[in-house]
């Protein structure tokens, strides 16, 4: 059972339905009927940009001692060890020097302090 008040609402909704009927798009079920994925293109772009910024930030902040010169190349260390008097070194010590030589040896390649 419907009241007059319900009938009034029904009439209003019927007018709304009639107005919407004029806006109904053509029935089309082809997959390419509408451009799809526009939204996800934006989302993907935003995520990619955020990832690039995050990696860039981490690289700049997290890279330790980036102003310190790179360790000496192995051949320089080899040179340092080879220049030392052989009787000054114990067996195996040359190899240790090559491996553990301090960084300043690179910068003062011509004047190694302990030679």
């Amino acid at each position, binding site marked *: 059972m419907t009241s007059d008040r319900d009938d009034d609402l029904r009439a209003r909704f019927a007018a709304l339905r009639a107005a919407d009927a004029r806006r109904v798009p053509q029935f089309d*079920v082809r997959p390419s009927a509408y451009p*799809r994925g526009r939204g996800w293109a934006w989302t993907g772009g935003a995520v990619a940009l955020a990832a690039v910024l995050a990696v860039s930030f981490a690289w700049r902040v997290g890279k330790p001692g980036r102003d310190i010169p790179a360790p000496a190349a192995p051949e320089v260390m080899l040179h340092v060890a080879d220049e030392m008097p052989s009787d000054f070194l114990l067996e195996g010590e040359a190899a240790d020097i090559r491996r553990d030589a301090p960084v300043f040896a690179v910068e003062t390649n011509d004047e190694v302090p302990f030679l």
Partner: protein
Amino acid sequence: MERAELERELRAHHAACFGWALSCCRDDPQAAEDVLHETCLRVLDGRARFRGESAFRTWLFGVIRQVASGMRRRAALRSLLLLRMDAPEPAPLPNEAPAEATLRAALRRLPTRQREVLMLVFYQDLSIAEAAQALGIALGTARAHYERGKAALRVALGGGAAP
């Protein structure tokens, strides 16, 4: 159901489905078109399967509501990712009569469930039981939303509270 039969059913309910999609998309015709199209594709490629547990139209309205809800969620996620916290209001429909605009504005102010039940019952001419099925809620719940929604809508339209 065969694809041809499904297409026939979709075509038969196309106008009603657009009206419902429009309501689910807060009167945004562009979004409603997208929702309707996505719904049709899901029905035809079997991602949404009709099992005959209700009328086809009732089931279809349920699918439309689900698709619209998913699209709204994704749009909200996009807004969040793009740091756009203010969701833009949809543009007013073209050639909208004043009475139509008033009713739409009043419906937009209602809680979602109440609006949905009223749209299904008054706009789509479903029974309250069918509306409950389409929305996936209990009949008693739908009835309560229906009564409260009617009263709230009358107040919003300036007709005063229900007797």
